[in-house]
């Protein structure tokens, strides 16, 4: 059977199996076709490929010159032009490691360590000031590397914090339990913006004279604390789904409480909550854009500043479509990873 016959059969089975289904398929198919052809027409056929802002304005299509002009500002913020190769390399490293993470043969502690190393290497590499790298202060980091950095450390910090908080919330030790409940409910009761604001404005007031804590780190810690509280509730859901019999069986064998959690309960609970964990992670990725409130320019922040250029006013659709696609690339990769992990790590093997 050749490709044509096979796709014909597939269509017959899935799209045209009954008259009713055929009508739905034709209607939806023409809507999709119309939308895609409009989009392609706008982005390619009637697009402006070269020229100035005036040429673009005279034309109704997508303004590619704007994107060429502002690409580096959108992607890398105010990072000095002559050192742009550093954030470019960083982003490439992130994407490469992300694709490596899809390979289930690599899953394990080593991969986790690789991510940690990449995070710290990025911090060092963006900052410089050593080994002949020019020093660049963290306030001028921006764009995609900042988003990726906030997200990576945010997740690597928030996930373990969430596990500890969730275990603490179920603890028999009343003080620990109350502290965990208090923390989780307090953080979940306020918006991320106010946590970021407090971390940025209030936190330095408590520091001793002369101690300076970079804005980046203040935002990073605020993120970890905020997402840790959400992760805690996700993990708690998983812990509650494990039957009491599992704990009893582990205890009856003589395992201590920490051993029971580490070897029996958590491995099952964390696998059950892979989908909501990844949802929370995707939320974290998109919430990094809120650092704009404390004047850090992540991907969305640098996009907004690109739109303020008076000679290129009015091309916000182009800019947002572009960053939207970048966000989509990372978030959809995350959910694809989630589906794969769910499949490969399901607790009940059959």
């Amino acid at each position, binding site marked *: 059977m050749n490709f044509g016959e096979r796709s014909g059969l597939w269509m017959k089975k899935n799209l045209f199996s009954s008259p009713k289904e055929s009508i739905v398929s034709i209607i939806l198919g023409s809507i999709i076709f119309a939308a895609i052809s409009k989009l392609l027409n706008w982005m390619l056929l009637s697009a402006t490929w070269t020229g100035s802002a005036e040429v673009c304005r005279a034309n109704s299509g997508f303004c590619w010159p704007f994107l060429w002009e502002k690409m580096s500002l959108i992607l890398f913020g105010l990072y000095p032009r002559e050192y742009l190769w550093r954030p470019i390399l960083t982003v490439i490293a992130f994407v490469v490691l992300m694709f490596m993470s899809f390979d289930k043969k690599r899953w394990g502690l080593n991969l986790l360590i690789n991510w940690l190393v990449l995070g710290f290497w990025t911090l060092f590499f963006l900052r410089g000031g050593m080994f002949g790298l020019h020093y660049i202060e963290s306030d001028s980091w921006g764009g995609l590397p900042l988003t990726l950095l906030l997200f990576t450390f945010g997740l690597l910090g928030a996930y373990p914090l969430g596990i500890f908080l969730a275990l603490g919330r179920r603890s028999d030790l009343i003080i620990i339990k109350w502290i965990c409940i208090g923390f989780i409910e307090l953080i979940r009761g306020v918006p991320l913006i106010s946590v970021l604001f407090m971390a940025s404005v209030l936190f330095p007031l408590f520091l001793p004279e002369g101690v300076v804590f970079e804005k980046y780190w203040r935002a990073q810690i605020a993120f970890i604390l905020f997402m840790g509280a959400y992760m805690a509730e996700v993990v708690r859901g998983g812990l509650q789904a494990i*039957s009491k*019999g*599992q704990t*009893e*069986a*582990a*205890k*009856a*064998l*003589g*395992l*201590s409480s920490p*051993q029971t959690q580490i*070897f*029996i309960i958590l*491995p*099952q609970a964390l*696998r059950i909550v892979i989908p909501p964990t990844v949802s929370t992670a995707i939320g974290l990725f998109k919430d990094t854009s809120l650092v704009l409130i404390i004047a850090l320019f992540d991907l969305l922040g640098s996009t907004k500043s690109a739109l303020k250029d008076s000679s290129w006013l009015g091309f916000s659709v182009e800019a947002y479509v572009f960053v939207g696609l970048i966000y989509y690339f990372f978030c959809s990769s995350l959910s694809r990873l989630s589906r794969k992990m769910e499949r490969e790590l399901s*607790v*009940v*093997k*059959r």
Partner: protein
Amino acid sequence: MDSIISMNNVNKYYGDFHVLKDINLTVKPKEKIVLLGPSGSGKSTLVRLINRLEEHQHGQIIVDGITLNENVKNIEKIRSEVGMVFQSFNLFPHLSILENLTLAPIKVRKENKASAEKRAMELLERVKIADQALKYPGQLSGGQQQRVAIARALCMQPKIMLFDEPTSALDPEMVKEVLDVMVDLAKEGMTMMCVTHEMGFAKEVADRVIFMDAGQIVEEDNPHQFFSGPKSERGQQFLSQIL
């Protein structure tokens, strides 16, 4: 030491509810005891006191020379000497059959992996499922799972085995394969305490039958006497309902 388990005036409450009332019981090494009684009579709770899955409020429990109290180290010590088989198997679904057996010896007894696996395979051989060692619990039938659960408990080389209705969750055709394993174990001289509704099993292996009702030990007798004619009225009533 002539008793391996001794309970003196043990009382247990769930809140205001008095579950166990003045329990006095001694078990000698190698003795096989079957606990009978209507549901809610406290049989399971009594068995679960012995490895402190439940705490008692009054009285004294001594297991293998160790008094059960708040001391966590003592509790863990006793739990590693006392094996338990549950009604709902409670195998660890994320671990293979072999890992289910070797986890506790490796983590609790700090045994090396090779020797734990060797003993685990011998035990799986004994319960006749060595060929399933690398499968996962979800891939086995109920009867097979319960035999794995028995082997898992035995892999810690316990001095006492507790069975809490081990065949109640099984399909009828699988009850026998589990009981056969338990009968073998009894013949080898294991100290056993079984909560069960299998009267045939009780008659065959029990040295002593303990009949409980409403949180009290109503009657203690050898199985022959108990099944031919309980002394207590409640015992007679119970037997007439189940036989």
